[in-house]
């Protein structure tokens, strides 16, 4: 396959950026999108140019490191798929592919396509955990949890924190991410003792980081590689309301 890549290049957070054209040959339809970028980078290094910076780690769709706006879509045109699992067969020979970093004030560009997503880490540190001494694995049947509740909590826990929801949102809102993390623990008995403190802390930190506000457009749900549902946001709103009357 032959592709015409238009890639966002930017030297640093405050440096001006711009699109640069990179024609690429010999793309196998079986490559992942990141492997295609690897091929491009090898060519660039051979020519003595600076390779394109992009985030990646596990490349199997579970770590949340990869990002990229591909032709305007977070994680590309496929639904329920992270960029690392997007295959080049989804594109046609001769296509022009526009590749940009996540766009949000709370996610400043580090270089090229790599963005600083530590705002998510700070939100997690503000309450996205359960404070218990863990010790040995507890006996599985000592706390009984209904099947539907367990499944629903697991669906929320599937969030990999990649930030596609923020990138897809016209307001750069982090509500889907925060709601998934809050929902996961709010549905389980282990999360109940710190329920109010958790949601208050995480929402306050989210607002402080400069993310926008949710206007219920649903663009996040459509872009999420883990298909986190909008009902998590409703649950977050409920949890926050509940916390308003709990010290």
């Amino acid at each position, binding site marked *: 396959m032959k592709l015409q890549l238009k890639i*966002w290049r*930017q030297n640093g957070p405050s440096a*001006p*950026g*711009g*699109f640069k054209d990179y024609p690429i040959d010999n793309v196998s339809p079986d490559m992942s999108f990141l492997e295609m970028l690897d091929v491009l980078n090898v060519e660039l290094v051979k020519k003595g140019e600076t390779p394109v910076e992009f985030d990646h780690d596990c490349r199997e769709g579970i770590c949340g490191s990869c990002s990229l*706006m591909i*032709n*305007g*879509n*977070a994680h590309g045109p496929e639904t329920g798929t992270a960029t690392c699992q997007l295959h080049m067969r989804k594109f046609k020979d001769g296509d022009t592919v*526009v590749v*940009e970093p996540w*766009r*949000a*004030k*709370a996610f400043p*560009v580090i270089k090229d396509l790599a963005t600083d997503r530590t705002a998510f880490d700070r939100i997690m540190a503000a309450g996205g955990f359960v404070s218990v001494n863990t010790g040995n694995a507890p006996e599985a049947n000592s706390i009984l949890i209904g099947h539907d509740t367990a499944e629903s909590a697991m669906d929320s826990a599937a969030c990999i924190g990649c930030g596609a929801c923020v*990138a*897809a*949102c*016209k*307001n*750069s*809102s982090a509500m889907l991410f925060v709601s998934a993390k809050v929902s996961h623990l709010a549905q389980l008995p282990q999360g109940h003792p710190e329920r*109010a403190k958790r949601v*208050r802390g995480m*929402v*306050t930190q*989210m*607002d402080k980081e*400069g*993310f*926008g*506000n*949710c*206007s*219920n*457009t*649903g*663009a996040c*749900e*459509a*872009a999420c590689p883990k298909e986190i549902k*909008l*009902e998590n*946001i*409703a*649950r*977050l*709103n*409920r*949890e*926050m*309301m509940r*916390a*308003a*009357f*709990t*010290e």
Partner: protein
Amino acid sequence: MASLKIFLKSSVGRKFLVGLTGLGLSGFVLTHMAGNMLMFVSPEAYNTYGHRLITNPLIYVAEVGLLVMFVVHMGLALKLALENKVARALAPSQNPSNCEKDARFGSRYMALTGILVLVFVVLHLITFKYGPYYPVTYNGVEMRDLHKLIIEKFKSPLYSGWYLFSMLVLFVHLAHGFSASFQSLGLFSVRQCLIKKLGWLFALIVAGGFFIQPIYGYFYGGN
């Protein structure tokens, strides 16, 4: 009290208030539309309804309540919308390409449609509430002939056209706003499809009801 303050200051709490006041205002437009339907019954029914409304002492409570809802709804929504603009920073030459693959049309233009509705409401109050006073007497009681005034206005194609355009804008605003309010109040979950459909239906009933009134006034008014 401290946690209530944190809630009301947070983005979630402010959206809660926008949703709550939005639902209140939705209730108002629905009853307003239903009341106006009396114009199809007779000028007398329409005028008597208006007379009963404004002579009821509770009208002042209702007016203050409406004003508070309007101010809270608009003030908070505009502040949230401005914050959203700041949060989405695009580099100068970056493409604002079509990333909102599933964002519904109405949801992207809530601030714009909201401002247009505000302009309409202000002009609407000037035209009717503070407009010319035509007296009429039914059974010995003198009251305002609002029916005469609306027919007079609807006879103008320019006014009717503006009215119809505004109702289309209201439709777009309500079609997203009504169901989104439930989400902001945390009530949107398993039945989300049903609530979305209900939102469309509500917008259709309200805007549709308001839509047929100027058309009727233009073609058949005064006959």
